[in-house]
């Protein structure tokens, strides 16, 4: 084991958890300000996690114990693995070359799946209904997501994220393909709140309907792990979006002539800033301006409208590439 591997194994999760929770805090604060409230302090998610970790972990009597306890760890592990695939600015992704966009798609799915299985295993009727909803939702939003990835594979002839990150997609497509990529972006922005289980697609966790659904029976450490994986997933999902659609570096945009550590820090901060802006636009703004959909309405939105948008984008890209 090289020291580099050790750093990634220890450093990345810490940075990832920290960033995820900070972004969650900012998201809560901005959302509160949008609805004329003051909102919690930005460090509130850290306190939440700390408090959850101190609390007792209750396992329901009729739950399948080992699945119930294993699923939070699986969700947390998959979100942590996800982080290792994301290039921070010009910093290379640790697991670069060991997987690509398809793996990312699977890792994102794995978390939702872990929550659904945990929900089923908990034996609570609320969780069962929530898990059923999550499965239906997953079947709906995976298709446009896969189409977006296929579109990128068509353009780059590769699934590798670092290849995609090194050249901005907008610079290698023509006007027709550009329109196609724009449509893919729209489809991807629709998928984002569903993937992150945020309003208007937090149907599986609807608190007024099924009392937090899949998480209804979770408490203590298990809930803290789900909370953390949710925070990290939020950051990672938006980071992927930035890498795919807005990979413009500072040096690319303004021709900056920095070198060494200063360059890495500047690019890293610029990357985090981009993620923050997109996070507020794609998650916070959307979740404060929509009501929750019913499950069949959400399915229809994805299967009909978002799919049509994504397929149209794919068609345009295909027309240009071929």
């Amino acid at each position, binding site marked *: 084991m090289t020291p580099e591997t050790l750093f990634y194994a220890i450093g990345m999760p810490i940075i990832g958890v920290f960033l995820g929770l900070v972004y969650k805090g900012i998201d809560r604060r901005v959302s509160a300000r*949008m*609805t004329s409230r003051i909102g919690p302090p930005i460090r509130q998610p850290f306190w939440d996690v700390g408090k959850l970790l101190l609390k007792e972990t209750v396992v329901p009597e009729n739950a399948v114990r080992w699945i119930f306890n294993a699923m939070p760890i699986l969700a947390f592990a998959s979100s942590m693995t996800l982080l290792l695939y994301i290039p921070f600015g010009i910093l290379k992704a640790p697991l670069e070359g060991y997987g690509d966009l398809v793996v990312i798609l699977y890792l994102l799915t794995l978390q939702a799946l872990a929550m659904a299985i945990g929900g089923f295993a908990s034996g609570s009727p609320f969780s069962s209904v929530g898990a059923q909803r999550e499965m239906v939702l997953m079947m709906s939003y995976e298709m446009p997501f896969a189409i977006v990835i296929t579109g990128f594979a068509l353009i780059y002839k590769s699934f590798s994220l670092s290849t995609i990150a090194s050249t901005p997609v907008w610079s290698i497509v023509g006007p027709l393909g550009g329109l196609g990529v724009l449509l893919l972006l729209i489809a991807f922005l629709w998928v984002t709140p569903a993937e992150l289980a945020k309003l208007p697609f937090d149907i599986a966790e609807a608190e007024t309907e099924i009392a937090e659904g899949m998480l209804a029976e979770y408490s203590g450490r298990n809930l803290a792990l789900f909370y953390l994986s949710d925070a990290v997933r939020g950051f990672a999902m938006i980071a992927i979006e930035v890498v795919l659609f807005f990979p413009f570096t500072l040096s690319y945009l303004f021709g900056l002539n920095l070198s060494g550590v200063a360059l890495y820090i500047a690019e890293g901060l610029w990357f985090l800033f981009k993620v923050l802006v997109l996070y507020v636009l794609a998650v916070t703004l959307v979740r404060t301006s929509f009501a*929750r959909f019913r499950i069949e309405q959400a399915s229809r939105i994805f299967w009909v409208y978002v799919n049509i948008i994504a397929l149209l984008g794919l068609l345009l890209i295909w027309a240009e590439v071929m």
Partner: protein
Amino acid sequence: MAKTTYYVPIGPIHPALKEPIRVEAEVEGEKIVKVNVKRGFAHRGIEYMGMKRNAIQTLYLSERICGICSISHPYAFVIGSEKALGIEAPPRAQYIRTIIAELERIHSHILWLGVIAHEIGFDPLLFWTWKGREKVLDVLEAITGNRINYSMYMIGGVRRDLKESHIKALRDMITYYWEFTEHMKEVFLSDPVYKARTRGVAQLSKEMALKLNVVGPTARAAGLRMDIRQDIPYDAYADMDIKAVVPQDIVGEAGGDAYDITMVRLYEIEQSLDIIEFCLDNLPEGKILAIPNYVALLNKIKKTEGEAIGAHEAPRGEVIHYFKYDGKRDGPAVWKVIAPSYNNINSWAPLLLGAEVADIPVVVAYIDPCMCCNDRVAVVKDSSGRILDYSYLHKKAVEKTRKLEKELGVRK
């Protein structure tokens, strides 16, 4: 493959419910195939307590029946009491009573709009509507001294007069709410997501509404022209021409769903503004209490024998109080309260049957249920099915106390 059904217990404590009630639903996937509504978790024995007190104390007690509309029960109470006692409130008091009742309708309806927004996951709208509701609460506080439980009404009048500053505050408030409701109508009635979540949900046909005996905005949304203020006018309502707000007057046809109820409630806020404006324009001068001396009033109650029914159109529907004064004591000998939620909750079971799980909060919220109004009777049975009455429970309680005292050595 055999279909699997889940049993989803909603309540007595559930995030969609602010008060305890139990809805036992059996769901098949997302569809509800069997439903059972159980109530009786918030019984407080207020009627029994009221019959042990004098009429003025009971009046304040009646204010505590409902948590939100604290004027609807005292209003029905004073109307019924005045009828039974043969007192008439002075005209100025009648107008002030009407103004307070309409202020309360405004705040209750805006509260409901926030609740329904919350139930479909539209929390920003909840914050926005409740922020707007502060204005009417401020005015109520300025007039009565309290935001809720105003202690404003008295048998034969009101306890506080309207001052010039109050009238100015009321007029300011009216201007504010004309603008606010205009904006609210835009947001609620044309928002596509709100439409998608409420159109066709909790749909009550006219026939069903009649059969289930629903009242208030629920009945009006189904197209029934019924409103106590229109049918049996009282106080200042008798001086104006009030028409029940029904969807067919607004959009041509009544759907009876949650969307139509939103519409009815929004237009009722405007109607209330009109009523308050009318009352302010025609506010008579004079005294505000028929019998200002409370001892004299209690003496009169002690000597009068009579019975009456007082009815008031509360924000949720009609509130009916039945009274009997027996001429022997200074409180009601019989006091029976009928709250609107009692009728309206009957519509839950048929509406939930066949609905989706996601519709449960909308169906539950659309009648604006008030459990503490609702729970009037609790029947306690022992294992053999025998109904345990008051004297039996009292005897048991005394026996247990004696036993405990003996064990602890308090009593020899």
